[in-house]
């Protein structure tokens, strides 16, 4: 019966194959994108001057959480997490756990999309209706979704160096406004608070779990391990650098007020008459990375859905899912609702969906003695 169940999911969706660099680019961009919008300001409200090292605690926690996901994948070589949930926990519980992941991967791109829209509307297109900005953006998301995961991965590998250079250049150029005293008091609102939010904030790095959904597109479990850890470490460094730059530029009492801190940092760059007003550079980075992040997360949601309901072709699901995402994104009536609702929910409780189901599945697999077939290289 179990063997039958294990075999049923095979070859459901052909997502193509791609290498480590593509996967690292995909995951890193997806994680780092969040730092462009309102999340840094929310973090400052919680921990004050310590956001830059709090996020390293989050990354370390996420690496530990990812270890459980890796152990689970190692136990079931060649299987993705949806299939593993079903094998270890049975159809019903597995379905519920997969459903939780699906819900998170639908809510998450909707949140980024709305954050993107709000920030774009505040800083760049004040007269354009949100639905217009989202609508245009979703065309790109649908296109990438239909072209498939492999295209997304190769596209992200292509743009990753450009984004990295622009991102780092922005932070270096902004250094003219950095002041060290803004890091003090060094413990912010207290070390306990920093550690607490560091642990719960690991949700931001939980997107490495995506690797468990697309496991069949990668080159085996060992590669997944490498990709997962490298992505988390790279994201941790980039996010920490961005938060450090933000903290060095804006003191804690100002930082919590700013809608898009990184955008604001680039508007302050002024090296005389010829090098100033570099915000278009930042808009370029934020547009491209948001496109990749939203496209990937929506694709993952569609992929989970197809695997849950044994749908062979993912393409027809992309457009309906885009419409659902669009609708979810339109629900918050304002930025404050989005912050206290969606963003807060994902930041504070996302880890429960990313890590707890895989841990339960791992325990269940051990207790029930379930194991996959040995992977042949």
């Amino acid at each position, binding site marked *: 019966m179990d063997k039958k169940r294990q075999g049923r999911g095979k070859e459901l969706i052909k997502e193509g194959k791609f290498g480590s660099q593509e996967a690292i680019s995909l995951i890193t961009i997806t994680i780092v994108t969040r730092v462009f919008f309102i999340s840094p300001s929310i973090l400052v409200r919680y921990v*004050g*001057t310590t956001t830059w090292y709090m996020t390293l605690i989050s990354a370390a926690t996420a690496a530990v959480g990812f270890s459980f996901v890796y152990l689970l994948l190692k136990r079931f070589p060649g299987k993705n997490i949806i299939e593993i949930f079903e094998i270890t926990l049975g159809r019903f519980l597995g379905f519920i756990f997969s459903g939780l992941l699906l819900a998170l991967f639908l809510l998450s791109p909707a949140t980024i999309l709305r954050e993107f829209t709000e920030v774009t509307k*505040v*800083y*760049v*297109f*004040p*007269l*354009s*209706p949100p639905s*217009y900005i989202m*609508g*245009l953006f979703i*065309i790109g998301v649908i*296109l990438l979704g239909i072209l498939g995961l492999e295209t997304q991965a190769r596209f992200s590998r292509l743009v990753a160096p450009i984004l990295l250079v622009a991102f780092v250049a922005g932070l270096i150029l902004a250094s003219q*406004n950095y*002041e060290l*005293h803004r890091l*003090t*008091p*060094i*413990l*912010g*609102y*207290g070390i306990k608070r920093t550690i607490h939010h560091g642990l719960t904030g690991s949700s931001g790095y939980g997107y490495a779990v995506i690797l468990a959904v697309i496991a069949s597109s990668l080159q085996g479990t060992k590669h997944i391990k490498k990709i997962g850890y490298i992505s988390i470490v790279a994201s941790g460094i980039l996010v920490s650098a961005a938060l450090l730059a933000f903290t060095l530029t*804006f*003191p*804690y*009492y*100002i930082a919590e007020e700013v809608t898009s801190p990184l955008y*604001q940092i680039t*508007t*302050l760059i*002024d090296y005389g*008459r010829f090098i*100033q*007003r570099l915000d278009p550079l930042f808009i370029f980075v934020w547009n491209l990375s948001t496109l990749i992040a939203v496209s990937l997360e929506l694709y993952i949601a569609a992929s989970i859905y197809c695997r849950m309901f044994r749908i062979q072709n993912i393409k027809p699901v992309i457009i309906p899912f885009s419409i659902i995402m669009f609708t979810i994104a339109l629900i918050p009536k304002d930025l404050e609702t989005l912050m206290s609702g969606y963003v807060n929910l994902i930041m504070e409780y996302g880890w429960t969906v990313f890590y707890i189901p895989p841990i339960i599945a791992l325990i269940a697999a051990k207790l029930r003695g379930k194991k996959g077939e040995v992977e042949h290289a």
Partner: protein
Amino acid sequence: MRKTISITLIIVILVTMFTGCYDSTEIDEITYVLAVGLDKGVKDKLRLTVEFHTMKGGSSSSMSSSSGGGGMGGNYPTITVDAPSFYTGINMINSSLPRRLNFMHAKYLVISEEMAKAGVSTYIAPIIRYREIRRSMHVIVAKGSACKFLEENQSFIGSTLSKTMELQVKGPTDTGYFPHTTLNTFYDGIKSTYRQPIAILGGVNSSNNYQEDGEKASAFQSPEGQYYAGEMPRKGGSKVELYGTAVFDGDKMVGELTGDETRLLLMLMGDFERGFFTIKDPKVPQDVVPLNVRTSRKTKIHVDIKNGKPYINAEIELEGDILAIQSMINYEDISLKPLLEKAFEQQVKSEMDALIDKCKKEKSDVFRFGTVASRKFLTIQDWEQYNWNKQFENAEVTVNVTFTIRRTGTLMKSSPVIGSEGSK
């Protein structure tokens, strides 16, 4: 076939949507504001003045026009309106203009002294929130009215006012007579737990302080930087003058610093770059020795807190060149050089002590000592509870100045003047 239709459809949709973007604006549909002025209104709470470019060709001096009852300014007229708020004011001005005002290139935010003394937070808050206004614009407190200041703010050299304004605020690099205050640092300052804000002091110089005739001064009167903005004894040139510093406690202006005091402030802040100073000749007090002074090392500030009282130690290291010796005494000589160095050190130190006392009386840590003091605290709660801005008035500040003469310019020795009666 399906693929072709889909691609065509996408291209058509994208092309139509992009061309009709809601926020598209043609360059000739907008007017760029160069400066914003805020005064207390008469008909309403706020008197808003905007100075903008008319986009007409030719130089400002060759054209003369007035706009909507505003100030005369050639290519750069001003419009003033009494309005309940900044935003309403913009709308009111826009209603009388064929083009929409755009603040993306605004360089000055000018606040009247009266308004600054009453508190600026209610007026700054909407401006900082406005997406078109960049936080890199400079904040000036105008002695008198901001409206008058902007009416007189015209290009004197060259035809481009925006360039004039950009170059003018670069002044502190060479002189140190006014601080470099952007909207970002000013806004940060009014909310800061580390320091108090400062702004550039501006004024309109009507040459009232310049006396054409009168008794001629025979000896060194006073340091050149003792004036406030608008008071310099000069005639000719631009009427607008940036000179000195407006000192704030929170959002209220509580005092002013002269040009000289501003240089000392910048030295203590570590922002002073270079400037010419004039000191009395130590041996012949009626003569002067001008010096070209610059910072040699970044100012070191050390703060200790004992029994709740802050003890501050500031180490300032300067170096400079001799520019002239009126008395012709050979101060270039290695035995006499220390005399000049000591004299300058003592002058700077005594003036700095007086400046610190003045700011302590005004309860305003404009020196940013708090940025060092905050290292003594581990959490924000402890730091905020200590309340640095309150504690500053109790601080004991010790300043040590060292000055070294590096060069003597193109002359290595001062020889005496020889007349028929011999040398003098």
